[in-house]
């Protein structure tokens, strides 16, 4: 249907642009513009890229032995040989941060992908079917959200043998709930927007509206939430590893490194306290800032700026 036809149906004084979803320029151009305009977006992107390069490319440049323990070089202060010193088993801290970053990013990205997909399907299904099934599906979400996540995660983590896959599963069990609730609310809200109501008025079918209106308009919320989910998963994984429910040694994890740091705190080994914590913080800040920036780009309602 052309714009002219729409305006004819609705009467001349209705501005057609109000009824149509905002289109804007190309996505890449909008992202580039946002990054240029918003300093925090640039910081977020830089931090995320840094963490990824550090964890995955870093070990190719800075080679360390992260398998064999060597107590002769345990707890060494930072030096030219070990840039950030060594831990209580003689592992190089920088190398350990890189290895911990790999497992952290693998688990957190997988959790975000899994949780967002499951949550989006669950939420949009509930919104579309409505009625009793909707109630049952959302009450299930309410129940699981009622138990603080860390308690469920710890309970499940003690029951499984911790490896990358089980940890992804355990953290995903509680991570899909927020996206499910969000996507349901978003789908319901989109259905009442004027351009969707207009297309319903023109006799659009449900599946066409889902494909044409609901999914394209909810995808922004979904992607933004996935970015925040990465940050949440990084934190949750750090909690689990710190408490000793994470990947078992000799696998490196940031939380596990901090647990060692706690034990050696009174020996004054500050290099076992600061670096791993800073890595967690910059990863979380990076993904949170990136999420904020993506929200500005992808949420059509925020584009009037």
């Amino acid at each position, binding site marked *: 249907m052309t714009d002219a036809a729409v305006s004819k149906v609705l009467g001349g004084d209705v501005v057609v642009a109000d009824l149509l979803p905002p289109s804007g320029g190309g996505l890449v151009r909008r992202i580039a513009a946002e990054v240029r305009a918003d300093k925090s977006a640039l910081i977020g992107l830089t931090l995320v890229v840094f963490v990824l390069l550090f964890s995955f490319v870093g070990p190719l440049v800075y080679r360390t032995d992260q398998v064999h323990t060597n107590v002769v070089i345990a707890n060494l202060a930072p030096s030219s040989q070990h840039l950030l010193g060594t831990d209580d088993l003689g592992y190089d801290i920088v190398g350990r941060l890189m290895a911990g970053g790999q497992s952290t990013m693998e688990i957190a990205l997988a959790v975000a992908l899994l949780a967002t997909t499951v949550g989006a399907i669950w939420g949009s299904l509930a919104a579309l079917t409505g009625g009793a099934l909707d109630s049952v599906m959302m009450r299930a979400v309410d129940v699981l959200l009622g138990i603080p996540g*860390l308690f469920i995660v710890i309970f499940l983590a003690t*029951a499984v043998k911790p490896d990358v896959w089980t940890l992804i599963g355990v953290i995903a069990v509680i991570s899909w709930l927020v996206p499910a609730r969000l996507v349901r609310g978003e789908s319901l809200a989109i259905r009442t927007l004027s351009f969707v109501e207009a297309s319903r008025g023109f006799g659009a079918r449900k599946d066409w509206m889902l494909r044409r209106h609901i999914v394209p308009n909810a995808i922004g919320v979904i992607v933004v939430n996935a970015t925040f989910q990465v940050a949440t998963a990084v934190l949750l994984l750090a909690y689990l590893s710190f408490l000793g429910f994470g990947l078992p040694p000799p696998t490196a994890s940031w939380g596990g490194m*901090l647990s060692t740091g*706690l034990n050696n705190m009174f020996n004054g080994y500050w290099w076992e306290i600061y670096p791993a914590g800073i890595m967690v913080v910059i990863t979380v800040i990076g993904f949170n800032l990136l999420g904020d920036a993506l929200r500005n780009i992808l949420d059509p309602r925020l584009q009037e700026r």
Partner: protein
Amino acid sequence: MLRRYAGPSHAGERLMLAYVSRRLYHAIIVVLGITLVTFLLQHAIASGTTLARAMLGPRANSLSIDAFVRQYGLNQSLPDQYWKFLWQLAHGNLGYSYKLHRSVDSILARDLPHDLLLVGVGLVVAIAIAIPLGITQAYRRGTLFDHGATAVSFFLYSMPSFWLGLLLIQLLAVNWSIFPAEAPQGTSLGDPRALVLPIATMTLVTYALFSRYMRSSAIDTLACDFIRTARAKGASNLRVLLWHTLRNSLAAVVTLVGLSLPALFTWGVVVEYVFNYPGTGLTFYNAAVTDDYPLELGIIVLVGVAVVVGNLMADIGYAVLDPRIRYD
């Protein structure tokens, strides 16, 4: 659906009552759901003889395991066992820890006062910081002060709470030896200085959670018509901020506290672990490490119920305190 509320009326009261009873009904359903999920989780992990063996230890012989299974009805059908679990819960019995040889109730009665102290003081101090700071930030929006305060709370918010605790220990206990690194042990309070670091950690993470909401709540209030009216009537800045904005921020706090219980419980576990603080969080950690399932489940049920009640209070408090809004 949101409806404009035109003033006190019987219709408004009736709607309010209907809203509260609907929320109450919803809360009961969710609490029942939580008990069911907890029960099923337990069964998925250990049930019947496996559970008996886990409780009695590796040296238990088959005779005592059989006796245990029969005594606690672990060979009954799932619905029967769930009904029994529910029946006990309804009578305030959260279970029995075979590892500690104490009822879960008595363990929680011992721990909860400590949690109230840690979380309660942390909460009050965090609110006392977050409200005035949020109003000031809203009033001076866009200034260096506003950006600085936002950056600090964003940094704190992105920090794992245990690492914040470690940093405080490193600075104030190891480097400068001002405060002890470990919380007071035993039932008495002991040295109050030992409480400073755990409570400070709790305060900072709670403040980080609240500050952004306090700021945006104050910004919303300052943009309201009644603020313009007050100003037009010649109210001073101080009066507008202290009387009108503060009152609205206090209403927002009620909601915020109710909704932040899951986060507070989560931090409770981690902060108590770091400072060896004798509360429910540390007890839950120890129960998880020793596979003390009844104790773990009892705590999960209690925490879940507390969260649901918190949400309920937040919703009702919001509806009561904000006269503009009624839900129907």
